[in-house]
């Protein structure tokens, strides 16, 4: 947590992405589905470039063994998940405000928009944490990480797009709330199974 590398990377990426999008759609308000897609993809990449660091930095600086000597894998995972969740919430707070301000997109359902952003961020934090925990210590971790990330992160992107599209004024309100419920469930599932997956992946006991 002392190194704010992840947070800075995430903010820098978000800022650049939103500025680029607002310039590319200058004087043209993007359609709700396009705006929802742009925001979700930006959220996804902002999470992917920053959040796995909390796990991988342990591997890179060789402190994973020191950590494992003192704490249970599930507790280590829970701590890192909490840190990632806070980081993702900070990122989404800045990114969503920037996005709406700079692209000029109209938010017709602010509550759905806020909850869609909130649960997209939390489920991304959960998904990226699970991927980070699974690949930590693996020699081919980038390949493994990509393979693990696709099935975990793709549903979140689709659900996030579904919720935000409705918040921007396209689709049925009930469909939007179903997507938010799906995101909440996905985030809860990842947070619940993550500690067990981490314990299984890091298990070395005889």
């Amino acid at each position: 947590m002392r190194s704010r590398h992840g947070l800075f990377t995430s903010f820098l990426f978000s800022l650049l992405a939103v500025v680029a999008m607002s310039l590319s759609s200058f004087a043209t308000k993007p359609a709700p589905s396009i705006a929802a897609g742009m925001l979700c993809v930006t959220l996804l990449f902002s999470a992917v470039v920053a959040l796995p660091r909390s796990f991988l930095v342990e591997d890179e600086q060789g402190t994973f063994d020191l950590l494992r000597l003192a704490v249970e894998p599930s507790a280590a995972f829970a701590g890192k998940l909490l840190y990632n969740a806070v980081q993702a919430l900070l990122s989404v707070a800045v990114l969503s405000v920037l996005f709406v301000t700079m692209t000029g997109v109209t938010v017709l359902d602010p509550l759905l928009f806020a909850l869609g952003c909130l649960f997209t961020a939390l489920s991304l934090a959960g998904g990226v944490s699970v991927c980070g925990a699974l690949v930590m210590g693996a020699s081919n971790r980038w390949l493994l990480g990509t393979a693990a990330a696709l099935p975990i992160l793709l549903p979140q992107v689709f659900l996030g797009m579904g919720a935000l599209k409705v918040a921007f004024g396209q689709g049925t309100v009930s469909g939007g709330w179903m997507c938010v419920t799906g995101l909440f469930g996905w985030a809860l599932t990842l947070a619940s199974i993550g500690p067990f997956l981490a314990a299984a992946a890091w298990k070395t006991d005889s």
Partner: protein
Amino acid sequence: MLSADRLGRRFGDRWVFREIGIDLQPGQCLCVQGPNGSGKSTLLKVLIGLVAPSEGKVFRPDRNGIGYAALDLSLYPQLSAAEHLNLFARFRGIHGTDSDMLAKHGLSDVGAKPVGSFSTGMRARLKLALATFHSPQVLLLDEPSAALDETGQTLIGDAIHDQLQRGAVVIATNDPADRKYATHELVLGV
């Protein structure tokens, strides 16, 4: 206290060690010796649970009952020595030991500096402090004398003597001087 039954570890087709049996009681010190690459460090990592054995079983105390220090164990470069002790004390549910431990290990003057600026010897002292501050039942030291000056080696000797009053010690070493602590010896790679 610490025991292993028919313990073996292999990398690919090569067995580093096999059929190792250990039964360590309080007051006993096992000295593991052998040439470079004979598996001394790997055996210690298997004993504490950082590396899975390829065969056999290890019976060890829980995390709070084990202390481990090794040359290749990394510290957090951005944290200070005091922050390391505080953090790991919190992990282990212990309070208020950092200033005593820093003084005991000759780190009081540098306790607030980031560990990234420490010499190898100072890091070794901090690792010894982290391995012993929670009074473990079993203390495992990998090449404890390496990188330490005379004062540091006295610290190691004191730590081993203290440990033998309450529990057991396992030392992996190539230094003949470390054999003086041994009540049992295990030679690998022969």
